[in-house]
């Protein structure tokens, strides 16, 4: 066939209509069938994974899962209490690090930097950080925070998760601020408010729902991260120190260590932990998406 783009209306006249009709119809049907099949294959995998988690995870869920600490090698029973609490602490530490930096940087891009060369460069680098392998961020934090202080810590884990969350928040903050209509800002300025006041009390307020969504998405992104924690917070089979120095127990690394261990109660707990973490993240992302849909 000679038709290459729709922009070239000349080419379309050359299609030999009558002769290829059957073939064209077959090709069309085959493509539709394949595209539909591929879509359902992907959805099937999602439900397969969720089904697997439900089947294998529910058996491991009991009140003890939430009240007892992770068992040592060979000991009976046990739960995930320390890992669940540790995961909460690390994730919120990460969000606490990332939110002010991400929101301010996104604000700078949308309100001050705009189309300047520096802003474009920062945007570009931020987009690269957005897809950078999380294992490299773990190694980076290991080199700057674990090695110099000679020990794993929850602080390093929180910082690593924060670095992963920053680009997500920068991106959504900027996008959401760009959706705020210019006249709103002009109205603020016309009242004599300096730019910072306009941004904090007019623009931010108008974009609040979207910015919160960005933070929730970042939360969902880092809650299940495992690789960066192996190099930073590591893990701990006991209650971690309140100073967060030394290993801090967390769900992802616990799952990693327990999943292929030879003890049956460890494997049970790994499945229970997987169910807890996946359901929390999926619910979080669905809520975040709803917020976006409602905000528009």
């Amino acid at each position, binding site marked *: 066939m000679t038709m290459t783009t729709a922009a070239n209306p000349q080419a379309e006249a050359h299609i030999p209509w009558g002769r290829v009709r059957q073939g064209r119809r077959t090709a069309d049907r085959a493509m539709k069938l394949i595209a539909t099949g591929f879509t359902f294959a992907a959805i099937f995998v*999602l439900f397969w*994974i969720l089904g697997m988690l439900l089947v294998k995870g529910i058996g491991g869920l009991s009140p003890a899962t939430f009240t007892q600490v992770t068992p040592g090698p060979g000991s009976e029973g046990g739960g995930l209490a320390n890992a669940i609490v540790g995961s909460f602490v690390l994730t919120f530490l990460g969000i606490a690090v990332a939110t002010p930096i991400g929101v301010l940087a996104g604000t700078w891009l949308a309100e001050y930097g705009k189309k300047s060369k520096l802003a474009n460069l920062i945007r570009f680098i931020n987009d690269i*950080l957005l897809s950078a392998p999380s294992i490299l961020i773990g*190694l*980076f934090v290991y*080199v700057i925070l674990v090695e110099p202080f000679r020990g794993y810590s929850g602080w390093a884990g929180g910082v690593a998760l924060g670095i992963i969350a920053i680009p997500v928040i920068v991106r*959504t903050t900027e996008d959401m601020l760009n959706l705020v209509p210019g006249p709103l800002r002009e109205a603020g300025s016309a009242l004599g408010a300096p730019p910072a006041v306009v941004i904090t009390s007019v623009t931010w307020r108008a974009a609040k729902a979207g910015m919160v969504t960005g933070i929730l998405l970042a939360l969902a992104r880092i809650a299940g991260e*495992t690789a960066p924690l192996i190099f930073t917070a590591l893990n701990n089979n006991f209650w971690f120190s309140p100073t967060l120095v030394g290993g801090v127990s967390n769900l992802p690394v616990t799952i990693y260590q327990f999943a292929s261990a030879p003890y049956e109660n460890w494997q049970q707990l790994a499945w229970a932990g997987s169910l807890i973490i996946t359901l929390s993240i*999926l619910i979080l992302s669905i809520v975040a998406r709803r917020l976006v849909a409602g905000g528009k």
Partner: protein
Amino acid sequence: MTAATDMTSIPSSGPVVVRKTPKATFDLVFRNASFGAALLVLLLLAGIMVSMIIGGWPAFREFGLGFITSSVWDTQNDQYGAWPAIVGTLSTALIALIIGVPLSLGIAVYLTQLAPPWFKKPVATAVELLAAVPSIIYGMWGLFVFAPLFAQYVQIPLSSIVEGMPVLGTVLYSRSPSGLGIFTAGIILAFMIVPFIASITRDMLEQIPSVLRESAYGIGATTWEVVRHVLVPQAGVSIIGAIMLGLGRALGETMAVTFVVGNANRLSSSILDPGSTIASRIANEFNEAMGLQLSSLIALGCILFFVTFVVLVIARFLVSRVERY
């Protein structure tokens, strides 16, 4: 604050008269703080690069270029080479693309052209949720559910078919059909990158003015012809950009691969045999590593950084800001 001096070079958004009031101080502080935060984003990437080079330097100094080409990974004699891990990383990512790209494009076409309107949203959400499932869960699914099935229904029959054949007999033959290996890792990676490629491609297809589609349909083109001759040429390079973004993800994916790749230190000629990737080797050995081994692992990270950096830079140039998160 050093950022304050740099601020003069940034074009301000217009003639704004600022009087010297307490609010003006807040204005200056806020402006500098947000500028500092934006610069921090730049510093982060630079920091990652520098720390990888410094951390891996002892290994690069010790082994030189041989670090990249050597296949030895011997903790007893402190000899390290990156070649098997590099090959493993590239081949798992390639297999992921070969499987994942047609899947993603099919999904994007289904979502934009074929799905009934009421069905679009739930399907799109389900595909995007595939991206939200944590990497380690893919690893568990791969190790405990997918790999046994793969060994039983693919590896064992395939091995008995290709045994003795000239080329296929080595490339597709598995000596220990456990289900774990380079190919399994590629399949799992394919499902992990599908949501990213599919949702960017869908956005690209949706941005194409519908006049183009309608005029093609108007002259009697079938849906396939509209996709093939109107939509794909229009979306063009940005689809390649989306694929490159998927590649970037596949190269650095860690936990899922660590579970299913088999973690063999030696390079096998069969894609069904266990192997290792840069990320899986770092995740596996890091906590026990010391001295030169630790430095070699960080040097592996350095190689991964530069490979993914190049891939992502190309991707971003091609896609230019469509991905949303």
